[in-house]
């Protein structure tokens, strides 16, 4: 069996490995590693002096209120209503209808793009900065998209395509669906 060397033992000890088995055997025969083990134990006990941080009084309620405010800040007319399950289905249906009417069948094929083309997509369902970040990450997963700038207040995502790349609309729709609650409503070209 391959014997442990000193650096492996020290690394494992730093990672919190128990001092038994092959590490224990090594420690019994190696004064240098025993010293390291003692040093690590001392360091761990020093760190423990910091202890846990006390939660201030009223903190829980503050967080719950902030969460409620997040919902209350929802822009009027927003279709992101998944917080209220009863609305989820109508929202999805409405989103689908709007998608069909506004974007049309051309959406479901790759949209041909000129070099360095910029498009603005109307995204339904965004209500806060966290939504904007989520949508941005989802859109960036779509192949051929170089950059995206999301404005949750306007409900838009400004997309810049990589040179010579088409907009893969189906991928974009699927990416937004993965976010559960967001949907593509329209696309317009920016001259």
């Amino acid at each position, binding site marked *: 069996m391959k014997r442990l060397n000193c650096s492996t033992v*020290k*690394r494992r000890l730093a990672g919190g490995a128990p001092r038994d088995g092959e590490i224990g055997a090594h420690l019994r025969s190696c004064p240098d590693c025993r010293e390291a083990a003692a040093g*690590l134990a*001392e360091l761990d006990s020093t760190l423990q002096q910091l202890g*846990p941080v006390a939660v201030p009084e009223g903190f*829980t309620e503050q967080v719950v209120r*902030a969460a*409620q405010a*997040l919902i209350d800040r929802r822009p009027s007319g927003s279709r992101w209503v998944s917080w209220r399950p009863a609305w989820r289905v109508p929202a999805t249906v409405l989103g689908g209808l709007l998608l069909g009417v506004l974007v049309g069948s051309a959406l479901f094929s790759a949209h041909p793009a000129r070099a360095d083309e910029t498009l603005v997509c109307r995204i339904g369902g965004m209500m806060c900065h966290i939504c904007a970040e989520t949508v941005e990450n989802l859109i960036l997963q779509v192949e051929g998209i170089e950059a995206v700038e999301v404005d949750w207040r306007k409900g838009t995502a400004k997309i810049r395509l990589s040179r010579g790349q088409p907009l893969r609309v189906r991928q974009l729709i699927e990416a937004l669906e993965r976010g559960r609650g967001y949907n593509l409503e329209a696309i317009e070209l920016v001259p």
Partner: protein
Amino acid sequence: MTGLPSDNALMVRVSRGDAEAFRALVQRYQQRVLTVATRFLGDRARAEEVTQEVFLRVFHAAPRYRTAANFSTWLFTIVRRCCFNATRTERREAARLTAAPATASPVDPEQQLLRRERRERIQSALLELPARQRLALVLHCFDGLTQAETAAVLGTTPRGVESCLYRAKRRLAALLEPSAGISAERGIEG
């Protein structure tokens, strides 16, 4: 059996708009999140903001949460993102520490002062570590996450966490040695 609902059961309720379930989750995890954020950022006020942001993200992402996931690993991944964002957006001016211990016991003022100074030295040394090493150390040593859990939060392997902790502790021992009487550096040096 106390019958406390599991984290995943609470998350299912949160996704349906149950404010009580959200409150229960916040109460269950707020101290752990606040401790990690405070130790990572070294700034109590900023840590409270980050903790609130973390729970708002949990609330926000509830409809998309997959119950097959381990809630605490998922939660601390959000903590990691928020902490890293906080360090990116706001450069640290100086090591600051206002964190109070969880339980205050009546001791003589001189001893209290010494203990406070010692805590401040440790916290300042923590802030000298690179962000990734610091977070690995805070999650593993203060929050008690296992190597595998820490690896999942940091997006690395358990072996990667081990190396990260090794480097962090070696550096920390060197930083603390002159002031805190830590003799680990010589021993830990590989």
